[in-house]
């Protein structure tokens, strides 16, 4: 500790304080959002961050009154949760097993399969939005929740990331599993998953965030307000009733909260996995 203190000059201390100050400034938009969501409309723009008469009226308005304006936010929350949880569960399950095959099983065409995944990741997905709309329209799934779920049920990126991590496991684990005649299911769930928690957390977090906060695709695929996920319903509400700044900010808090909570919950895995994915 002494060496730690002695190493810093005055300039060093100023730099340290400046960095902490900058890091906290980065959180300002979150603080303003939460504060605005808790203030009456008249006080949002003309009071300090922590001043004002705090109430939950904006949330009550959003969840109860907005329903009468044909903006069912409770339903939208449910739809967002249903779609996001289904997609995340499906991506984790399929990526886990397919990545295991790619990383650890011998089958003809394995290398080609890996190369194909890499090629897919290079091509920007935004190119596919329009033709995907045509496909979903042909399938008769427009304006249904399947339009939000089906196209995202597997992820080439998820398979690739997991297989990179599975590859580094020592072969001895699998020799032991073979001796014990462990089934594929047992090998993956009992050996692979516990030893690769960080990368699984990363794939889960990014899939969850990407699905929950997806905007362009549901904006195109869903046109009925009672089937919209929260992200789209909130944006259309803001466009039409822009004057209701308080309720819009309350919606923004609801949209942000699950993502921030998940991030804080998985922060250790996340920071570990980030350095892993950067190498």
């Amino acid at each position: 500790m002494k060496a730690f203190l002695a190493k810093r000059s005055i300039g060093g201390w100023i730099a340290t304080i400046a960095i902490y100050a900058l890091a906290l400034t980065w959180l300002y938009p979150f603080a303003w959002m939460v504060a605005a969501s808790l203030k009456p409309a008249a006080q949002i723009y003309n009071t300090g961050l922590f001043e004002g008469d705090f109430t939950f009226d904006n949330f009550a308005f959003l969840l109860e009154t907005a329903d009468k304006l044909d903006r069912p936010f409770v339903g939208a929350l449910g739809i967002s949760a249903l779609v996001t949880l289904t997609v995340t569960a499906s991506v984790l399950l399929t990526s886990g097993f397919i990545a295991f095959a790619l990383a650890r099983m011998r089958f003809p065409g394995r290398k080609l399969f890996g190369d194909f995944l890499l090629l897919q990741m290079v091509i920007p997905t935004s190119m596919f939005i329009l033709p995907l709309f045509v496909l979903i329209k042909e399938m008769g799934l427009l304006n249904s929740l399947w339009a939000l779920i089906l196209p995202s049920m597997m992820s080439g990126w998820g398979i690739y990331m997991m297989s990179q991590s599975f590859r580094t496991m020592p072969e001895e684990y699998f020799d032991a599993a073979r001796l014990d005649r462990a089934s594929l299911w047992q090998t993956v769930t009992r050996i692979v998953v516990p030893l690769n928690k960080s990368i699984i957390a990363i794939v889960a977090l990014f899939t969850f965030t990407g699905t929950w906060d997806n905007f362009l695709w549901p904006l195109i695929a869903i046109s009925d307000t009672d089937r919209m996920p929260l992200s789209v319903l909130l944006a259309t509400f803001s466009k039409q009733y822009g004057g209701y700044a308080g309720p819009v900010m309350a919606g923004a808090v609801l949209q942000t909260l699950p993502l921030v909570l998940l991030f804080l919950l998985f922060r250790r895995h996340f920071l570990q996995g980030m350095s892993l994915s950067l190498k």
Partner: protein
Amino acid sequence: MRTREPLSREAVVGLSLAGAYLLFTAIFWAYPFFWLAKLSVTQWRFFDEPVFTGARNLLTTLQDPQFLQALWNVVRFLAFYLPIAFGGALIVAFGLRHVGRGKGFVALCFLLSNVSSGVALSLVFAKVFSSTGPFNTMLFDNFGVRVPWTNDPTLAMLAIALVVAWKFVGYYGLILYSGLLAIPKEIYDAARLDHAGPWKRLTRITLPMMNPQLMMVLTFAILVSFGLFTEPFIITGGGPADSTATPQMMIYETAFRRLQPSHAAMMSILVALVTYALVQLARRLFERKVVLA
């Protein structure tokens, strides 16, 4: 000719797992790919039969002033975004190395913007940048000016660049930080013996050694700028006068507002090609092989 050996059980399981993904990809990736190619050379309005028109879509798209404006807007965006994002990311990277113990906390503060909701925070920034918003109130109280962020073409683009940079600086900073850690200490010791000052050490050792990470950030930044949709759509709606309309917004408008999917398909293809070309150009110009002797 030898008869082929039957596949082992492992190979069968492996093939069927890979096959499941390939089937999924054939439906939701290869088939749309085929449709995109088909749309780009036909005239179609969602309900009728596609009529082959050859290169006509290409010609109309290349002469569409709004589309060209959208591509130019990406360049204007990059002109603001690259300096802000690289400057910020370098500060974060050096900052993380400097603070030592509190590293985890500082990294989390900067990363929170990256993993949270783009939709929600775009709505927040639309209010923060509004004429009576907190940013203008702060400027007015301290400097006596109000800045019309969303009414001026250049300021509106700057506002979008600030929002997107706020979102990605933490992530880019972490990438640069990992490069910073990989530089061997001995090089700096040798430089000190040669009396190289801090500025010389930064420009002759640190930045050249971080070339792979800097290139990674530059590539990500280019990809982000061509993919922009949510932020300009919500904050400025593309205005004023299409000055913040991005290619993705143009594609959306053309396909689903003006109902010209063929035209929009051609735009998608051109945007992908321009993105690829710009990434390759950047690599040609700035990529260096880092060799440790």
